């Protein structure tokens, strides 16, 4: 497999969110806006790349029976690092993402990639794979966040789009549902349909 393919599969063909349906909790939980989605995506990418790197480095040193616990410890360490770093340098975003940062640890993509890819491939491929999957995940979250932000708040990356009529108090009448739980599910459902269609078209 060429490295480019290795990298790009994470965007469409094996996109974690739209195709593999993994890591759904953060996907739904934090995407009230594009910027939150992107932040979460990048944080996950960091963990993914680093854990892929470390796992592929130490893979031969780890006995099979403790493979999973070892991987979990490695991943959890990087998650904690992200937690600490974000708390220190981007506290606002950290507060927004809240519980979902520690939950990166149980994000099936991270462990899944460590298991399925990094523990079988060399360091370079593993890093590329991590970047591809991670950025694909980040892209998915940003798109979902963007859609929900546009419909639910009438803005994108905080930029007012002036899509919705203003009410008596001068606030835009947006479809609040989309920043709430039901909107997350519904928006993701339709996005998956759309991506499926695109994937099918491009496959031809």
């Amino acid at each position, binding site marked *: 497999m060429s490295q480019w393919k290795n990298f790009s599969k994470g965007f469409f063909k094996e996109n974690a969110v739209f195709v593999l349906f993994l890591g759904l909790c953060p996907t739904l939980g934090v995407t009230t806006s594009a910027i939150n989605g992107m932040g979460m995506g990048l944080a996950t990418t960091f963990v993914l790349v680093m854990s892929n790197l470390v796992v592929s480095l130490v893979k031969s040193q780890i006995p099979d029976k403790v493979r999973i616990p*070892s991987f979990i410890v490695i991943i959890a360490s990087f998650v904690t690092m992200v937690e600490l770093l974000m708390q220190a340098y981007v506290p606002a975003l950290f507060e927004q993402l809240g519980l979902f940062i520690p939950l990166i640890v149980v994000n099936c993509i991270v462990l899944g990639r460590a298991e399925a890819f990094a523990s079988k491939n060399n360091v370079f491929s593993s890093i590329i794979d991590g970047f591809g999957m991670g950025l694909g995940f980040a892209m998915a979250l940003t798109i979902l966040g963007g859609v929900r932000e546009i419909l639910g708040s009438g803005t994108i990356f905080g930029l007012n789009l002036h899509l919705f009529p203003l009410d008596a108090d001068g606030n835009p009448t947006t479809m609040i549902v989309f920043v709430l739980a039901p909107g997350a599910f519904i928006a993701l459902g339709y996005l998956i349909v759309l991506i499926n269609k695109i994937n099918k078209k491009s496959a031809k």
Partner: protein
Amino acid sequence: MAKRESSFLNMVLTLLMITFIASAALGYLYELTKGPIAASKLAKLNNAITQVVPEFDTIPSSEIYKMGVDGDTLVFYPAMKDSILVGTAVSTFTNKGFSGYINLMVGFLPDGTIHNISVLEHKETPGLGDKMTKKKSDWSVQFNGKNPAEFKIKVTKDRGDVDAITASTISSRAFCDAVDRAYKAYMEGGKK
């Protein structure tokens, strides 16, 4: 490269190694980030204080005093300029929000007039209750410059003077509740 066998010793050793390295690295990173984390928390606090009280030249966060009210504590941050008290920021709370706990920073002038209010923490619904924050709407501006002695901190529905956020009476009530609590505590004994 041959895989290591899953013998007891190997397993324990491997895990031990990994946990050792991991914890050492984390511990180290924690030490490194401890400072910045504390700093950023402080910065947030100071920022909130600065927003709600007139200009000052002391460090209010270093002169705090506390008061237990309704099962929780209110924290007072007096702000001085030229050694005269120009205002006091009160970190107050309510549990009556639509989604429970709301944490406000209310700035009082020495006579009890509200100078400004900022929301520290809330879980109210986006698009509804979250209009109490300045980022979302100017609703909370109506408190500025009002003295609760003559301005009744209750929503109009409860025969007060506060116009509730449309469709979010509950959040508005809670907000008033927190401000009122701060005001009462401040007047009762919080003034030093």
